[in-house]
């Protein structure tokens, strides 16, 4: 297991390093002088010189990258060009909003995904199965920017039971804070629920056909016990990995949810950074979002390997 973990960690570090190079190069991929791209075509020479100086554009690309990555590794994220604040402070300020959203959406997709999956696999009612199946197909057709608008329209405009957006502190005003989390969390979780449910249902059905189920039943275990104690733990693997991938992607999903629900978070900060051509800020946030996606996925795979020894054995071979 140790060897497997080290191997996977090394792989993740290499990938992150390559990603950092790509993210850094984005500015230089843009045609033309980066300073002009940042300041706009009508900027005067003084502004351009200031930008070049500030970004170190007068040195070689390699030197610029080396300095940037060196600063990042020592915890210095740099300063936002447009907001004039340290990027670290900006992230600390915006992180809670996005984190709340991510946790809430994860809760929704886990609970509904597991329940729907178990029901789908164990129900004998054709009607229930088909209803869940149709609902799942519909959910898959609802990306967050679509379901978000529909949810706001239904719950904030037609029925007026939930606020249409914004955020409130969970500590000072917990009720209001939670009420504002409900709709965006559902919007973000919806497309993931059917995927998790179907993965789980397929695994549960596959496991029911295994001989150990027959053995357990023959030894007198009740159906309920076999389902919960034997089949379910053995069926969680693919659903856990999918869940980890989805959680890693939630930071991306937060960009859309924060835009639709007018919430302040890392997503809206990233959009603002790109729109104002604040490259240092955009690069750090982009790298952060990608790093989280890669690391969360890695954790999911490691959990999977811890649960299922066959995976780490396979990797060793």
């Amino acid at each position, binding site marked *: 297991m140790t060897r497997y973990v080290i191997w996977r960690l090394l792989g993740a570090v290499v*990938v992150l390093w*390559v*990603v950092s190079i*790509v*993210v850094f190069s*984005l*500015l230089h*991929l*843009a*045609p033309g002088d980066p300073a002009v791209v940042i300041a706009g075509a009508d900027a005067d020479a003084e502004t351009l010189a200031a930008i070049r100086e500030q970004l170190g554009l007068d040195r070689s690309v390699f030197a610029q990258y080396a300095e940037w990555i060196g600063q990042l590794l020592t915890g210095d994220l740099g300063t936002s060009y447009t907001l004039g604040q340290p990027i670290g402070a900006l992230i600390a300020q915006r992180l809670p909003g996005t984190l709340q959203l991510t946790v809430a959406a994860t809760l929704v997709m886990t609970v509904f995904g597991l329940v729907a999956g178990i029901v789908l696999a164990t129900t004998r009612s054709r009607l229930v199965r088909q209803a869940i199946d149709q609902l799942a*197909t*519909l959910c*898959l*057709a*609802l*990306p*967050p*920017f*679509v379901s*978000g*608008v*529909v949810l*706001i*329209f239904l719950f*904030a*405009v037609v029925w007026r039971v939930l606020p*249409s957006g914004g955020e409130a502190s969970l500590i000072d005003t917990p009720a209001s804070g939670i009420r504002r989390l409900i709709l965006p969390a559902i919007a973000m979780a919806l497309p993931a629920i059917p995927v998790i449910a179907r993965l789980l249902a397929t695994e549960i059905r596959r496991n029911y056909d295994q001989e150990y189920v027959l053995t357990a039943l023959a030894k007198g275990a009740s159906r309920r016990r076999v389902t919960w104690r034997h089949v379910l733990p053995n069926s969680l693997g693919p659903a856990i990995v999918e869940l980890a*991938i989805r959680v*890693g*992607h939630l*930071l*991306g*999903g937060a*960009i*859309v949810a924060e*835009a*639709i629900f007018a919430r302040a978070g890392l*997503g809206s900060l*990233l*959009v603002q950074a*790109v*729109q104002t051509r604040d*490259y240092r800020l*955009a*690069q750090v946030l*982009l790298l952060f*979002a*990608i790093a989280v*996606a*890669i690391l969360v*996925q890695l954790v999911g795979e490691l959990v999977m390997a811890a649960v299922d020894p066959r995976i780490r054995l396979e990797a060793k071979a």
Partner: protein
Amino acid sequence: MTAAPTTAPPAATEPVAGGLPPGRRRSRYLAALATPGGAAGLTIVLLIVVGSLVLPYLLPYGPYEQSPDSLAAPGGSHPLGTDEVGRDLLARVVAGTRLDLLITLIAVPIAAVGGTLLGLLSVVNGWIGAFFQRVFDVLLGVPAIILGVAVTIAMQPGTEAVIIAIVLVTMPVFGRQARSSLLGQLPLDYVAAAEVLGYPKRRIMTRHILPNIVDVIFVRFAVEMAHAIMVEGGLSVVGLGIQSPDASLGSMIKAGSGNLLDRPLYALAPVVVVVLLVIGYTMLSNALNQAVLRK
């Protein structure tokens, strides 16, 4: 080892893969489209495509035509009302739909061909193959919207950026699919038979194996058309996709979501088109999938 025959032997004696001549394959697709789900999916998609092409000639206003009547209520000559600068919303939904269809019809075929070729390359050549598989792994591990944002850092937001974002998001999917499908074909008897007959590797790949994975790529294509619509929508909704004055489904949803209280149709009309398109493509791909499995 004899050289490959310069003239192709008659098709019947060649170990043709999977056994289905093109005619049978075509009839299988037609049968898939005749199933209730396939017919419904095809109808939805075709109606939207034809509507977006024909309606601009029938509507009284163009998508960029402004009038002093800003945010007018639906009714009269503006069935959906008007936007902030008095442009007819129906005309803009139609124009937005057309732009979405155009963008996806440019981006997804590029991604499909490119991804399939890279997948093929990865099976033929170990080195290049391994490289692109790693690239695909990373791209697949990054949320689509983040990739889109990365593209808009390197270039100005707009139609081209959205197309490139969709290609970046979609190509790895096809690459993975092509590779795993190709690898699945390699151990089959007809490949061994072709090898025994002395055909060069490239001929076996392109003439024998590739036709057999076309079906799977086709099914994927319909799914990815739906995903591409979502990528455009997501990017435009956050403000990094299609820029004003151009209209796309996503940019209209963004503009309309601020007016949900007074003018719900502003955002809901493009939402309905997105949902219908995605459901249409999904039904099509499900029907095609059934047809592929049934062989």
